[in-house]
């Protein structure tokens, strides 16, 4: 079994792990809202992981998709009085369109140049959202986003006003997105994405058009990230301009890389760690960003596989300790 193609048993195990995590979070964390924030950012890191982990594209543009999703959902609710399904679909649609546009331009360049292009687009989109203050509320943000109940033909299925029910909605979407992306990674399409990361010109010569695949990966990533953005708008009950700025991109990237890109589950760990730690540390010490910086350095230098690889390492060590022999060769996904 290759360590990149996720096989069925493994992804089923991971999904069960995610369901357990999602069920435990509200009980373990001090508040449901903190758990909700975790789950929303898990979705965002999943979108980032698809680009960074599979195709190897480090995009500073994730904040654009997140913000686009936030505005689409927010505007659908505020202006059209739409329900959650329509509003989140609007996010999905706008996210995928923006991603297709940006992907088709940025994915033509590689390496540092690609990174810089995504950075430039992030700045431009921020400026756009800031300038269109009639639509987006500009720096004041888009206020008055409510949480309409989930209803079907006039009957309310799930009122989202309570924090727990909104958390439930986010969790269901999170697990569904995970399952979808696990399928994608294990599919022929996913295999080509990995091939592009490994050797783009060879992929081309073998008969694939890498640009088309990269754009599609962008679209998928944009969709997922935009849904996270849409949920975040409903969670905050407003859309701050900061949802679309460079710091949002940075935040999603840090979560993804801290968790590790070797597996989709890395994103789950990264998002929960960053959200929870930033809440707790910023309460204790206003210079907590210093600590975050140190953690990033340590992870980059000592743990290129992220926290996920550390967990795997511990799991293997424990298994060895218990059984007394190594059932399977442990792999620490070290960077090439």
């Amino acid at each position: 079994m290759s360590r990149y193609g996720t096989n069925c048993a493994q992804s089923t195990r991971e999904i069960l792990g995610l369901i357990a995590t999602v069920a435990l979070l509200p009980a373990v964390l001090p508040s449901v809202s903190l758990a909700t924030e975790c789950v929303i950012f898990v979705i965002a890191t999943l979108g980032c992981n698809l680009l960074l982990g599979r195709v190897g594209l480090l995009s500073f543009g994730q904040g654009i998709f997140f913000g686009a999703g936030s505005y689409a959902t927010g505007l659908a609710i505020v202006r059209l009085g739409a329900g959650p399904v329509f509003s989140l679909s609007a996010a999905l649609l706008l996210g995928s369109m923006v991603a297709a546009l940006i992907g088709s331009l940025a994915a033509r360049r590689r390496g540092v140049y690609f990174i810089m292009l995504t950075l430039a687009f992030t700045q431009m989109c921020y400026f756009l959202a800031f300038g269109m203050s009639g639509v987006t509320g500009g720096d004041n943000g888009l206020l008055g986003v409510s949480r309409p109940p989930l209803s079907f033909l006039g009957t309310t299925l799930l009122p989202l006003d309570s924090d727990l029910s909104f958390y439930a909605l986010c969790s269901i979407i999170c697990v569904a997105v995970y399952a979808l992306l696990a399928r994608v990674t294990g599919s022929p399409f996913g295999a080509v994405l990995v091939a592009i990361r490994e050797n783009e010109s060879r992929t081309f010569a073998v008969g694939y058009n890498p640009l088309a695949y990269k754009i599609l990966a962008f679209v998928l990533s944009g969709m997922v990230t935009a849904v996270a953005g849409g949920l975040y708008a409903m969670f905050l009950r407003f859309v701050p301009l900061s949802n679309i700025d460079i710091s949002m991109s940075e935040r999603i990237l840090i979560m993804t890389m801290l968790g590790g890109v070797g597996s989709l589950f890395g994103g789950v760990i990264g998002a929960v760690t960053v959200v929870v730690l930033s809440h707790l540390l910023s309460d204790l010490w206003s210079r907590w960003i210093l600590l975050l910086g140190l953690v990033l350095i340590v992870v980059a230098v000592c743990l290129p596989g992220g926290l996920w690889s550390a967990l795997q390492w511990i799991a293997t060590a424990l298994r060895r300790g218990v059984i007394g022999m190594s059932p399977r060769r442990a792999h620490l996904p070290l960077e090439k």
Partner: protein
Amino acid sequence: MASMLLSQVANGVGIGIIYFMIAVGMSITFGMMRFLNIAHGGFYLLGAYVGFELVQQTGSFWFALVGAPICIGLVAWLSEPAFSVLYRLSHNMQILATLGLALVIQETVVLVWDTVGKHVAAPGGLVGAVAFGDFVYPRYRLFVICVGVVLAAGLWLLLERTNYGAVLRAGTQSTDDIELLGIDIRRVFAATFGLGAGLAGLAGVLAAPIRGVEPFMGPEALAIAFVVVVVGGLGSFFGALAGGLLIGIIQSTTSVFWPAASGVAMYVGMAAIMLIRPRGLLGRA
């Protein structure tokens, strides 16, 4: 209109020279070590603060102007072996690590100097502006341009006429070749790293009387350095010079025609240049 445009170009050159100083170190470091240093803005920040501290201690801006860059350069030069751990990492991990380092530098500055910004006055002889007819230009900015021109010329001589320069130029092409010549590549790396950091530090001191000194000016410097380097071409000395001046002029002229957009203009310019000329203005093909 023409004289207005001319003065905006002059302004652009003044800013651009500082941008060049910030960016050139980053560019050379990338060209030679393939090291993408997000913490490069930190040298600019530290340069400004060390400069401020030296002005406070000695009362002389001139002392700070010379002392701070040397100080930053020395520290970078001595700590380069620690950075060399990062060279072998992938670019993605370099970004993560140096992003962390940039945060550490910024927060350390806050711990030492607090969050309230500091004021560094321009030296006595350079206060005020000179008038050429309708056209007014601050003395201090003229001085900055002069320093920039002297510096660019000096760097050019260093690159073209000295042994070290030859090694450096060869190094941005292929480090293997240098090692074949029996030169200790690590010493070249350390010197290059120190030089780049010192230049960013110098930019920090020079910008202090214009922009002030505050702990959160690193990211802006970094963003500008990045844009300049990409526009000019990674690893190219003249690219950094051309890129710096171009970005400075773009910023300054958009502020006449479309003031609200002057913040984003450089990014639009960069994206356009990259889509047309993937390797930047003067980058290697």
